[in-house]
């Protein structure tokens, strides 16, 4: 399919768009590739934005490739906002009036923070956090403030709380649910994170919703009212109630959209030669029974990009077929990894084995099918697990017994870390009445091999 001279234009330089561009170049030496973004000239890691605010890194450190990389690989970069897409004439119109022609268009425009029409949501000092511009605004909005309120108990909400706390700004954290992120996490895990949030002196308000945001005379936020009738004085409000596909500039075109840009399993939109990947895309049919129609994590964005690049450069297009689900996050100091399927609540078809360290900051949960005891998924908090191991165990449908008795091999914690896998095995044997053991490792091998 590598037709000489075809021009592939990608809107959006996030992980999806950039992965697509890089992989096109790997298999197609000829195509002209142009990546357009109004946010930044170069690709940076969005997940690292928080670390810039916290002073762990500067913007330049969040760029995964050095600046010469793009020219070296003949990937054109253009810093511009696209205002109009003329699908009929295959042309893009930039904010500065320039127009850009394309043969193939890939839309990877990402997300935008949700706002649910609260009174006062457009006051100064009220914002979401998604882009580098948001971060710059947050830097400005949080100068010399006495208190901040973060609304929404999800991944960005807790990141924002951590960011503010790193600058010693008192934070009140409003979470609508009973426990933090409990629409994803089972109860024990959610409670574990609740405790850790409080350990960091965050004023965590569970089952509390935002009613309205109050402004002062110069339209700056001065407080919020909750659904419990309480008024909390604050000079900054972080709205982190999820994100939605960033597709506003495709409205009123012939591009088929719903919540996101509608695509099939080949990332094809309803318009020929136009594709969508990443956060902005919505599969007409979910890629797998345990997957959502809109996939908004780093890893899926990368896989979309890889797969579409393959399809654009090879004669044999492949439908998007993601493997075993995995994800990760970090809640203040506690790392979270998950592999396979772990629902927040489950019925009697599924069983759960849960282990928690006595200090209450480390835990593992295994979900298995009750009928045949095959592992379905695992949640890990403060306990690093080997991706390769669980990808294999879950896709091959290992029995939970086998998984537990190989946990020493699955352990990815740093050397000399406490051997928590032993405690897990002990509790498992006690609960299940089994007598599983790890394979014996000869002394010499332990001496020269890695300690787990």
């Amino acid at each position, binding site marked *: 399919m590598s037709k000489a001279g075809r021009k592939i234009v990608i809107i959006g330089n996030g992980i999806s768009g950039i992965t697509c561009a890089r992989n096109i170049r790997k298999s197609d030496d000829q195509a002209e590739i142009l990546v357009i973004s109004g946010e930044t000239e170069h690709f940076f890691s969005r997940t*690292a934005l928080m670390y810039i605010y916290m002073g*762990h890194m500067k913007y330049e450190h969040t760029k*995964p490739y050095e600046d010469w990389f793009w020219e070296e690989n003949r990937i054109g970069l253009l810093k511009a906002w696209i205002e109009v897409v003329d699908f009929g004439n295959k042309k893009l119109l930039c904010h500065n009036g320039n127009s850009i022609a394309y043969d193939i268009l890939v839309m990877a425009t990402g997300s935008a923070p949700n706002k649910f029409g609260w009174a006062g949501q457009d006051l100064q000092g009220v914002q979401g956090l998604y882009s580098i511009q948001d971060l710059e605004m947050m830097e400005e909005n949080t100068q010399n403030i006495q208190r901040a309120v973060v609304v929404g108990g999800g991944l960005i909400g807790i990141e924002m709380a951590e960011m503010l706390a*790193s600058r010693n700004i008192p934070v009140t954290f409003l979470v609508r649910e009973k426990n933090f992120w409990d629409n994803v996490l089972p109860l024990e895990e959610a409670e574990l994170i609740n405790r850790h949030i409080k350990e960091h002196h965050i004023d965590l308000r569970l089952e509390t919703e935002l009613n309205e945001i109050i402004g002062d005379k110069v339209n700056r936020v001065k407080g919020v009212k909750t659904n419990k009738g309480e008024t909390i004085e604050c000079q900054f409000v972080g709205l982190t109630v999820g994100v939605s596909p960033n597709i506003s500039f495709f409205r009123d075109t012939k591009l088929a959209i719903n919540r996101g840009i509608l695509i099939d399993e080949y990332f094809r939109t309803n318009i020929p030669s136009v594709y969508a990947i990443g956060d902005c895309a919505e599969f007409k049919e979910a890629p797998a029974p345990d997957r959502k129609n809109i996939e908004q994590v780093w890893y899926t964005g990368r896989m979309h990009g890889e797969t579409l690049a*393959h399809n654009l450069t090879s004669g044999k297009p492949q439908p998007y*077929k993601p493997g075993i689900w995995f994800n990760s996050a970090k809640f203040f*100091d506690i790392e979270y990894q998950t592999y396979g399927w772990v629902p927040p609540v489950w019925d009697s078809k599924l069983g759960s084995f849960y282990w928690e360290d006595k200090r209450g900051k480390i835990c593992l949960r295994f979900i298995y099918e009750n009928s045949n005891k095959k592992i379905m998924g695992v949640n890990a908090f403060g306990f690093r697990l*080997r991706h390769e191991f669980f990808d294999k165990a879950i896709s091959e449908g290992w029995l939970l017994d086998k998984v537990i008795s190989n946990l020493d091999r699955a352990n990815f914690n*740093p050397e000399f870390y406490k051997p928590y896998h032993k405690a897990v095995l002990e509790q498992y044997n006690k609960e299940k009445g089994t007598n599983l053991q790890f394979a014996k490792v000869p002394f010499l091998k332990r001496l020269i091999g890695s300690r787990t």
Partner: protein
Amino acid sequence: MKKLQIIGLLVFVLGFLIFSYIPFLGTYQLEKEMVEQKVKPEHTDAMVRILKPMFGIEYDSNFDFLADFNELFKEYNYDLKVRQDWDQVIWDDYAFILTKSASQGDVQETPLLFLGGSILVAVIGALIYILPLYKDEPEGIKNNGIYFSSMKSRGVLGIMTGAYLILFYVILYWFPEYMTNLVLMLDPVSKAISGNEASQWFLYGFIYTLAILVMGIRMFRKYKGNTYQTLRTGSVMFFQLAFAFLLPEILILLNMPWHDFKNIWPLDYSFFYDYRIDGMLSSGALGMFMLVWGIILIVLGVPVLTYIYGKRWYCSWVCGCGGLAETLGDPYRQLSDKSLKAWKIERYMIHGVLVFAVLMTLVTIVNYFMEFGLLGQATDQLHSIYGFAIGSAFAGVIGTGFYPFMGNRVWCRFGCPLAAYLGLVQRFKSRFRITTNGGQCISCGNCSTYCEMGIDVRWYAQRGQNIVRSSCVGCGICSAVCPRGVLKLENGEEEGRINEMPILIGNKSVSVKS
């Protein structure tokens, strides 16, 4: 910051300022007896004649004293050089030892008081600051605000610190006669350990060891809960205190040559110099052991241990340079250059130094067996070039002085010939690697930013590739700062250690080879 910590910081600064002022104290008066006592017998007559005009004169500062001293001394040698009377020229440098003898005043009379008022005060202040660090905080990564810190991100404080360190090293290596008072105040300590008066090298070793110990305690606080960091910091503290500082002094007490049993050629570049070999050969069984042990380390210790554990067994667990870098230098680790260009320069430089060190040593050994016939001049020349350019300027002035500018491993990364040797083994024949955990990397950049060796760890991690690099000293910080549990330092089977064409796990549609 708590009030107590602010007080600690102020106390530290006070001790530091006093330390810096001590060289300017006191008066200097040279007497004939001093010269007779300190100067080699063959030079006594000449030196007494040269320095006669200074006898009995009280100088208010060491600058005035040394101005006269240098003028008289130079004049004498200059005449001889003009006459090409090379045998009469005095090549020995007596400036330091005679200035130290001539020093009079409070420091000379009450050295321990000054030692306590400067170094001890600074240590106490530092500990008052360090011990409560992160006291009420949960275990975790403590990198908040590093890039807002003037000290840690090449701000004014960082530049001043670097400049001070550079100045200190220049004086220490080439003008120690200007810091005789500092050495003087350590005389009682040195005498207590080895029975000898302190030299500038004793002062240096003393401060060096204290820096590792005090900043090692800071490491314990900062990486609380991370056993790998705690153990390896404890290890460098032990090896510095026992092997680099105390043991060599005890050897002196026993009339043995000064020897650091954990130092390995070619970092210990003078190991095969004739005076070292002769010293070891003339020191009985223990001397013989030094020689044999040193050679075992070179031909067996380095390859075998590096094969099993990677070069970290030395660089971040044992080595003195590594010890200082990992403790005193830790606040600056993020300042190393991660660019591809820096990596290229690094490879030329460090292997260049290795080649230089090996050639110089070969010439030295050949020369030794030829009994200084053919290559005597060349050997001396090579030794002095290496000693000046590599041993002093690179390892010392740049190695430590550049912490606040280019990170804490400038010497280890660009210059250390032993690191180059260890690195070659690690790269081509070792069980050590940093394993990347499948497809979990989010390219955030913490690993690369905090790699003191300037390895772009993320480059490998984001493509699912294990990190196998000759320069990696295995400090384990990339693994610690990774927010997603992607990196693990491991020793394991050689098979699959280097995966040139990694596949990111998780996508069943296509197998993308990164």
